[in-house]
């Protein structure tokens, strides 16, 4: 996880910092905002895809998140992390969609891991990464987002807590339970 963070840091070191880009974008530099989009579109899409489990909706949410960020760029606090801010916007956009789904659909959202066959069974034949993705997709939403952000952010619990608006203790608990569930799901898929 730390390696991922280091890779990301190394990749970003050559480019200007997020705060600088935000200031430039506020001055009307469209290329600066385009750089921010290039830097964060993938993780934002990733959060949306993991949370919503629908590629088309994930794409819409990614676009919506950047649109909201662009519109309210002036409210971005200097010194804050742009990544935390944009992830938070994306996560809340996902929550809105999930709530709408709950309201307009009779299909209940998976609140617990599906014990039956289905994606797990098919995942046995797939690569480890695919098996892990399938297992993550089976997690309840609150655990799935914590695992996703943990995957993106490394061990930065405080950032995950800031994105989700949860106490850090809750984040740690969710993460612990998410890993437990993952372990059980992966164990089952290997049998």
């Amino acid at each position: 996880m730390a390696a991922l963070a280091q890779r990301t840091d190394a990749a970003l070191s050559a480019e200007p910092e997020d705060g600088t880009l935000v200031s430039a974008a506020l001055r009307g530099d469209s290329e600066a905002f385009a750089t921010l989009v290039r830097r964060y579109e993938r993780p934002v899409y990733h959060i949306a895809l993991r949370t919503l489990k629908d590629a088309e909706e994930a794409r819409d949410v990614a676009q919506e998140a950047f649109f909201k960020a662009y519109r309210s760029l002036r409210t971005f606090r200097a010194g804050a992390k742009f990544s935390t801010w944009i992830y938070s916007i994306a996560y809340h956009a996902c929550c809105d969609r999930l709530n709408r789904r709950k309201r307009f659909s009779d299909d209940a959202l998976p609140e617990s891991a599906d014990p039956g066959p289905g994606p797990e069974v098919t995942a046995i034949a797939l690569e480890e990464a695919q098996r892990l993705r399938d297992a993550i997709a089976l997690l309840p939403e609150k655990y799935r987002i914590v695992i996703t952000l943990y995957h993106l952010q490394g061990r930065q619990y405080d950032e995950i807590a800031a994105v989700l608006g949860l106490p850090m203790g809750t984040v740690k608990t969710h993460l612990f339970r998410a890993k437990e569930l993952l372990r059980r799901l992966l164990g089952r898929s290997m049998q």
Partner: protein
Amino acid sequence: MKLDDDAIERALAALPLEEPPPDLHASILAATVYRPAPLFSVAEVVAGASVAAALVWIAIVMATQIAGTLAAALSNLQLLAWVGTGIAIATWLNLFTISQPAYAVPQRAKGRVKP
């Protein structure tokens, strides 16, 4: 895959992020920095809508008053009788004036000069 805590963390770290759709970047930019500026500002839209609303309100008030006056007039029998009488007289008088051909007078005059 060994299923201890470290193994799961290693697997998570090694898990590649899903590729976003190829046109996502372009669509985000089209919705943000390259979005065409609106034709009217918010203040202009608000001002225009206020003027339009005021005009509609005045039109409705005027139409209501005219309709009220007409309704009152039509419900007054004495007034209707007078109006009916007036129309009848006007029609009767028209029978004598309009029914005469316009060229009748010059023809008669012509006849008197040359018997």
